[in-house]
């Protein structure tokens, strides 16, 4: 059988098909990201029984309910602490946190910062759609300056989080950013990240035409996709200023950090246990 058809058949096994069609709006990028993640996982030929998908609250949080592997839908912002607990109890498992920007960087911001600092062995897939989609399009910590949302009708005065730069500054060994337009690159990036160790962060710029796009002159899913298509530039050695997301500005994508050899927290902890037993 053709490898792509084989992959599609395997993908159906990893999905809870009885729950489809899913709750996400027409053209939502979370479906594309979940598709890329499942395909990357199938390509890696890892054991699905050793995969745990953890997600928080929000639109992206629903992803844990659609995968047919061990998954957990945690309370708001606590995806990373829960995943850290799984990794401590069962270091042989492959733990993936699949969550949104509001969950990981607003209420869960502190957990993200400290887990990255300690270099826990987790893969973080952060779907950034610039807004709080599920609650009606309020502005969040990743909304670009000047963007219009329900709570900032005259433009957002805040500066957004620069997620790749934040992760790099905390020493995360793998940091990448893609948009949902880059389906193949995103899949390859997740595939490579699955084989690495440490706190790996992949930010996926996703479209939310329902509550973000329609207030910012991108009413249809395709208009948002065209925006990503026209404005994304690949630059792996981008500076802080270039990595910042500007309203209607360029989106710099790429793999910004890819290093090996940093001991993970789990390894260092085992080392301490060994020394204490002597």
């Amino acid at each position: 059988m053709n490898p792509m058809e084989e992959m599609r058949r395997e993908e159906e096994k990893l999905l809870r098909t009885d729950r489809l069609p899913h709750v996400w709006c027409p053209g939502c990028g979370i479906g594309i990201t979940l598709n890329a993640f499942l395909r990357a996982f199938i390509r890696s030929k890892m054991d699905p029984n050793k995969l745990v998908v953890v997600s928080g609250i929000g639109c992206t949080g629903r992803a844990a309910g659609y995968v047919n592997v061990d998954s957990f839908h945690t309370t708001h912002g606590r995806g990373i602490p829960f995943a850290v607990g799984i990794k401590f109890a069962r270091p042989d498992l492959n733990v993936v946190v699949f969550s949104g920007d509001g969950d990981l960087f607003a209420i869960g911001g502190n957990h993200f910062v400290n887990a990255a600092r300690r270099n826990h062995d987790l893969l973080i897939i952060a779907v950034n759609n610039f807004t709080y989609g599920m609650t009606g399009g309020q502005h969040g910590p990743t909304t670009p300056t000047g963007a219009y949302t329900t709570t900032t009708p005259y433009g957002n005065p805040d500066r957004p989080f620069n997620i790749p730069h934040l992760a790099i500054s905390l020493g995360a060994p793998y940091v990448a950013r893609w948009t949902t337009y880059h389906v193949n690159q995103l899949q390859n990036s997740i595939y490579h990240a699955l084989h690495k160790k440490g706190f790996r962060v992949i930010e996926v710029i996703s479209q939310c035409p329902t509550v973000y796009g329609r207030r910012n002159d991108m009413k249809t899913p395709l208009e948002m996709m065209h925006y990503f298509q026209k404005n994304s530039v690949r630059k792996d050695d981008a500076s802080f200023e270039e990595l910042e997301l500007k309203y209607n500005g360029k989106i710099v994508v790429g793999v910004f950090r890819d290093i090996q050899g940093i001991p993970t927290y789990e390894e260092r902890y085992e080392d301490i246990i060994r020394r204490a037993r002597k």
Partner: protein
Amino acid sequence: MSEQNTKSLKKRGKVTIDEKRCKGCWYCIEYCPTKVLQVSEHLNEKGYHPPKLVEEPPNKVCIACHLCELYCPDFAIVVEEIK
């Protein structure tokens, strides 16, 4: 054109659309390199217009690139390669 290119062009695919899962975002129609899909007139049970295949196949044929499958957010498209 090199030999490898002509070989890859000869690949043909069969697109199957699961209309129950489709939500009518039309990414598949936009990003199909040979434009074999178009918007259908009928509605599915959720009230969206799913894509359908273009009827005149001699010019527009599926080359089994699987891009529509990758872009579909609703897991609604399957492309099979025809030998």
